[in-house]
């Protein structure tokens, strides 16, 4: 099969917050850029972010990037790289102002500045008291931000390939990344997009769990492509459970509800967070709140007929505040929980929300791997031509637990940083390397296998099996025997993934085929997560093990790297040295 080829300076895979911020920078620099997206850009999952963007603007009272940095390091349970964290929190205000200049409809204060609300784990003066740091547009910040970035890209005439799914990375014999193969969904055509630089901004993989706030499209496509091409995945055992997903539906209720003054109750009407986090209470960081909720449910204090959820109370805020600051939440609660929060509390449970791990990068958005053949054999050699930003990347600014609002900050800061690295790389490397003859080989083999498969299992069935296994074996509380069994199960499922069958053979918008191709990515994310979790014998951030209750800095203050090849693990050190600030030494983490 002859596969069509097109050449660009840069290919950006994914058009969520990180992809669009990067694309804008690249387009405005006059480069030829192709932005690929499985969905129309404004349908990317950034659109569902609610609560805000973390940046120490100090509009509501004193704030400082040093405090934001401290909160982020502490929130990460000291697994975050302090150089990357310093870079992010110092860049954040500039990027928020820039977004405002692009037209973002931020909420405003009386004096005309951007309104900021309190959020979990964000504090004044190194943990003393809550601070208002979250820059928001009601409870639709992600929607406002994604549309603003898309609009700005319309102005910059960015070239989009809408409803194109990237399938595999193209590497040459030296290991350099030279683009991707991709499928045009409407026609079923495959193409090689030859690029001098390739940026992954493909988002998370929350769809490996059955109970998730994530959209259907969050299938870890970048992770699957990277893993198949031989790149490791970092810190995949760290999955954030958001404290407030609507019970049963999984739909997100922003932490902004608690930021605006809402709080959680158990069945006895007790504000139980006072027991678990006496200082910040309901605004402790997400891993802490989710664990407290899971404990309440486990110990029989859950609400509802089956005692399996807790109650988020916000009626005391009054209809005015709710309609002004949290209108989307009111809509969601009515639709998905049959509750009007102006009168009644919302039933909520901890729900999978965010992947702290991902493709290893440095704070320039460059992908870094140990002992890359062209590198100096160090632990973090830069892969020429390959970049990642946003949830699919692990810089690592979130470490073992991300603070609310830092995901949007991450998208903006590292989307832009990666684009600037690309611009620099292209200037310094003016030539274009040829595509290898077998550029599309892996992709063609996958498609041919799927077309020819007989007597295979359905994609829906195997997908369900992945989600059930992850949910049961790799949840809020993790147990050594369950993890060991989980690894065995996930490896068996990985085998079944290679034998799935699609009945629909049409070329035109074949979504069954798309789902089968996504399954190849989901399984890599799931396997990386389970294997990494089983191996980490400590409790840190979102990873909580029944047999090792505390953090173990002497043995485990290190990043995990999982390789698909051999299903094996390596580790690399955490960057404890910031760029200019004083290092924040590990200590006991309380809120």
């Amino acid at each position, binding site marked *: 099969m002859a596969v069509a080829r097109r050449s660009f300076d840069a290919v950006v895979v994914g058009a969520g917050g990180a992809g669009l911020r990067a694309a804008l920078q690249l387009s405005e620099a006059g480069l030829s850029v192709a932005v690929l997206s499985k*969905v*129309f850009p*404004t*349908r*990317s*999952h950034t*659109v*569902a972010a609610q609560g805000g963007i973390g940046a120490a*603007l100090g509009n509501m009272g004193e704030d400082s990037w040093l405090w934001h940095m401290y909160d982020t390091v502490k929130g990460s349970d000291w697994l975050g790289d302090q150089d990357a964290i310093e870079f992010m929190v110092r860049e954040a205000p500039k990027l*928020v*102002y*820039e977004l*405002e*200049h*692009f*037209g973002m*409809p*931020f*909420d*405003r*204060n*009386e*004096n*005309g*500045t*951007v309104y900021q609300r309190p959020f979990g784990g964000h504090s004044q003066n190194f943990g003393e008291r809550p601070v208002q740091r979250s820059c928001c*547009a009601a409870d*639709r910040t992600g*929607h*406002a931000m994604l*549309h603003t970035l898309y*609009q*700005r890209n*319309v*102005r910059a005439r960015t070239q989009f390939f809408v409803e194109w799914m990237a399938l595999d990375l193209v590497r040459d014999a030296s290991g350099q990344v030279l683009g991707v193969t991709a499928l045009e969904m*409407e026609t079923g055509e495959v193409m090689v997009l030859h690029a001098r630089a390739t940026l992954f901004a493909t988002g998370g993989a929350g769809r490996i769990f059955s109970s998730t706030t994530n*959209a*259907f*499209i969050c299938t870890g496509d970048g992770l699957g492509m990277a893993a198949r091409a031989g790149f490791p995945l970092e810190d995949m055992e760290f999955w954030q459970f958001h404290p407030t997903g609507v019970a*049963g*539906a999984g*739909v*997100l209720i922003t932490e902004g509800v608690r930021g605006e003054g809402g709080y959680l109750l158990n069945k006895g009407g007790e504000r139980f967070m006072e027991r678990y986090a006496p200082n910040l209470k309901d605004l402790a960081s997400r891993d802490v709140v989710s664990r407290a909720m899971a404990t309440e449910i486990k110990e029989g204090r859950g609400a509802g007929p089956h005692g399996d959820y807790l109650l988020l109370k916000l009626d005391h805020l009054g209809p005015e505040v709710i309609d002004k600051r949290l209108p*989307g939440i009111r*809509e*969601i609660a009515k*639709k*998905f929980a049959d509750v009007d929060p102006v009168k009644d509390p919302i039933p909520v449970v901890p729900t999978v929300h965010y992947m702290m791990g991902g493709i290893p990068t440095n704070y320039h958005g460059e992908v870094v791997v140990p002992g890359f053949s062209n590198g100096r054999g160090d632990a973090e050699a830069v892969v020429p031509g390959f970049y990642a930003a946003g949830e699919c990347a692990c810089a690592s600014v979130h470490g073992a637990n991300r603070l609310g609002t830092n995901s949007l900050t991450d998208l903006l800061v590292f989307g832009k940083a990666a684009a600037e690295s690309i611009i620099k790389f292209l200037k310094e490397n003016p030539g274009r390397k040829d595509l290898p003859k077998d550029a599309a080989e892996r992709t063609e083999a996958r498609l041919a296998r799927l077309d020819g498969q007989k007597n295979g299992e*359905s*994609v*829906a069935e195997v997908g369900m099996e992945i989600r059930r296994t992850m949910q049961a074996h790799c949840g809020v509380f993790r147990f050594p025997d369950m993890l060991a069994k989980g690894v065995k199960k996930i490896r068996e499922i990985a085998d079944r993934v290679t034998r799935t069958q699609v*009945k*629909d053979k*049409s*070329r*035109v*918008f074949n*979504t*069954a085929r798309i*789902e089968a191709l996504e399954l190849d990515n989901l399984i890599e994310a799931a396997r990386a997560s389970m294997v990494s979790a089983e191996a980490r014998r400590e409790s840190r951030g979102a990873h909580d093990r029944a047999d090792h209750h505390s953090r173990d800095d002497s043995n485990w203050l290190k990043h995990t790297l999982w390789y698909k090849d051999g299903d094996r693990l390596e580790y690399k050190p955490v960057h404890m040295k910031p760029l200019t600030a004083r290092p924040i030494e590990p200590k006991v983490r309380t809120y």
Partner: protein
Amino acid sequence: MRFRIFRYDPDKDEKPAMRDYDVALDPHDRMLLDALVRIKEQDDSLSLRRSCREGVCGSDAMNINGKNGLACITKLSDLKEPVELRPLPGLPVIRDLIVDMTQFFKQYHSVKPYLINEDPPPEKERLQSPEEREELDGLYECILCACCSTSCPSFWWNPDKFVGPAGLLQAYRFIADSRDQATPERLDDLEDPYRLFRCHSIMNCVDACPKNLNPTRAIGKIKELMVRRSV
């Protein structure tokens, strides 16, 4: 629960047909999209767009028992059986419930849907009062699902010339923004027998919008501004 779904695959079908499905639902299946996911488990050839499943991404707009809406926030308990599902009207069908939205987005892009302000940006944010910001409420929340434009007879007849309710709502979103400096140019661009004035206030758009926005009101405001500047 019983469904009648519009099916058409240009790769093998000569013409479209309605196909019946009877599907056993799980007690957790609450929204129409849940039922469609179940149907797809049985018949993987059913094609539709979907993503966020909570009404913010705008992917799964379709015609549900004769009315445009989002499958993910349409409650099954509110639907009369058999539930008749068709692609959004007025746009070319690519396959099954998937329509070609090129024309819709072309109209959206035609209104220059981005802030125009040629002043050098200040070091910090541009100031905007809460009252000025409030002018954007009911406008910026649009999710570009196309439920409104594809329920509008004027858009059906002139999709290439009439901007349509979604595009006009966004045109007004920027006109209404205290930070935007291009109101005269934006009004000039719309002062045309088709681009704006094909709206005859039929108000199907208001009825169809799953986010409870009101494009007709926004269009009225644009017309008002045009009248005001001509006197």
